[in-house]
């Protein structure tokens, strides 16, 4: 009977420290282990690295992925879109990670969000709809009121984190600010010209930025595998929490990062960085996106977004 579930699963992880649990899971073959324990035999796990929310969503809709990690806004967009379409519906499996996004600048005149003028340019990986852009909008909404959530949008420019870092540190371009994630946000602050204007955790709390999701059809057809995945994810989170040094080594190895394990460990241990399967603050995103009209269908509670396995957690 166990053979009724798929023998092979395709999972996409992203690039960077926020995807550490997935990286650990791959490296330690945790899913294979859990699947075997659940009596599923030797499940083959295909890992892919995909960059960018819409590519992940496209791959998911076209049936090329079974499980994927993605930024919360990207997930919400897809979830709202396919709600009610039995063929395409998706569900969150669990939270993945939370961290702080720093709004850094090399313009000494900027002390707070109020000080941005039309001449300042804030770099984001993608404007208006990316995770960073939504976080910025939420922060702006907090500061200036919901109606003005897009007040800083005209100052944003789309640049990948590495380019934004380079631009900020070199000071040679008109980009003088960056809403960045670790490690770029940390590294920027090592430069004396750069200072921090805002920390997202201070404004929004330490909410989940990334989560893991899967198509409903996959979940319904493969309940054991889904459960095994959740167990594997929990195991990975535990490993990170218990042995940060080892997690850091794994990261450095598998991502072929040029960072030292110590540096990675420091990032893992940062109090703002959390790896947990419990979705935290997802509703903050959902409510905001619903309010400003980015999504047409709003979930009533966070449980609407996730599979039953995690409903008992203290999510939000």
């Amino acid at each position, binding site marked *: 009977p166990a053979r009724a579930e798929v023998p092979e699963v395709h999972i996409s992880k992203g690039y960077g420290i926020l995807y550490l649990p997935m990286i650990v899971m791959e490296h330690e073959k945790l899913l294979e282990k859990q699947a075997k324990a659940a009596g599923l035999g030797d499940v083959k796990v295909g890992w892919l690295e995909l960059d960018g*929310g*819409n590519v992940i*969503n*496209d791959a998911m*809709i*076209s049936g090329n992925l079974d499980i994927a990690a993605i930024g919360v806004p*990207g997930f919400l*967009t*897809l979830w709202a*879109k*396919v709600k009610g379409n039995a*063929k*395409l519906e998706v569900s969150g499996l669990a939270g993945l990670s939370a961290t702080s996004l720093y709004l850094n600048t090399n313009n000494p005149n900027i002390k707070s969000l109020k000080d941005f003028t039309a001449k300042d*340019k804030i*770099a*984001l990986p*993608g*404007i*208006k*709809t*990316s995770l960073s852009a939504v976080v910025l909008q939420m922060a702006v909404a907090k500061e200036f009121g919901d109606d003005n959530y*897009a007040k800083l*949008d*005209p*100052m*944003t*420019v*789309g*640049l990948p984190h590495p*380019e934004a870092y*380079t*631009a900020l540190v070199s000071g*040679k*371009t*008109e*980009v003088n600010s960056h809403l960045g994630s670790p490690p770029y946000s940390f590294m920027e602050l090592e430069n004396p010209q750069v200072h921090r204007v805002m920390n997202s955790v201070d404004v929004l709390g330490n909410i989940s930025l990334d989560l893991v999701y899967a198509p409903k059809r996959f979940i319904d057809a493969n309940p054991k595998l889904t459960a095994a995945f959740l167990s594997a994810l929990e195991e990975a989170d535990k490993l990170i929490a218990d042995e940060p040094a080892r997690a850091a080594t794994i990261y450095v190895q598998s991502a072929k990062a040029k960072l030292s394990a110590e540096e990675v460990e420091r990032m893992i241990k940062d109090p703002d960085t959390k790896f947990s399967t419990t979705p935290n603050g997802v509703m903050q995103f959902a409510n905001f996106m619903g309010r400003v009209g*980015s999504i047409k269908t709003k979930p009533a509670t966070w449980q609407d977004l996730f599979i039953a396995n995690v409903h008992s957690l203290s999510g939000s």
Partner: protein
Amino acid sequence: MTMHSTMHSILVDRPEIVRDVSRSTVIADVEKPLSAWERLYRVPLLRKGLILLALAVIWEVYGRWLDNPLLFPPFTAMLQAFVTDLGNGIIPARTLVSLQTLVIGYAMGILLAALLTTVAIGSQIGTDLLETMTSMLNPLPAIALLPLALIWFGLGSGSVIFVLVHSVLWAIALNTHAGFRSVSNTLRMVGRNYGLSGLGLVRHILIPAAFPSILTGLKVGWAFAWRTLIAAELVFGVSSGSGGLGWYIFENRNQLETANVFAGLFTVILIGLVVENGVFATIERRTIRRWGMQH
């Protein structure tokens, strides 16, 4: 009339014939009658219209069969989105923004290509320079230019134009240069006989003589300019509000409004058709076709 009748061995013997041609002066312009089908077949727009219709039908049928409008909507769904955003002015506005950038980048690419090939045709070292630069730089993706673009032009349309030029320049230069080098030696000699050299020779002899190649270069360049523009508007981040079609597509993609994404692409297709059949076809008809350089 005299009447010779010679018999060389096996030859057929027959009388000589002499006619008075001057009497039959009225020469009508005879035209071979064509069947209705042939006459219809000769209308290019009709033939092309049929092809387009067929493609649209295939799209529609495949889209419906696939039944995944989020990934690939049927033609009609796309058309609906297109008409809506055409009506409310969004697509026209975005198209305008894109076209402006595109035309500037395209024109600059053409100018630079003209410059480079003129230098190249003038001397051996010029040829080497063009060949080397082309083989080195042409394969480089836009991201390779990102750092330099940021330093030199900053964000926004300056950098987009820079990238556009990069995608247009080499294809046009390659085609033009190959065209120049294929110009027959006789025509070249005729031009030099008139005292032409350097720029004059290029302008008066090489460009018209190599026009089929140049036109191909322009077509390829035009297409690649579009591709690059759409991609570049994402990479180089438009400051919000000023986006073109690329941005329109990107935005809708992020919001999974797939029908609108395809409406944006459909706009690109339409412009491509208009430019091909309006601009390029007219140029071809008035130049190389008329001059008998292409059949």
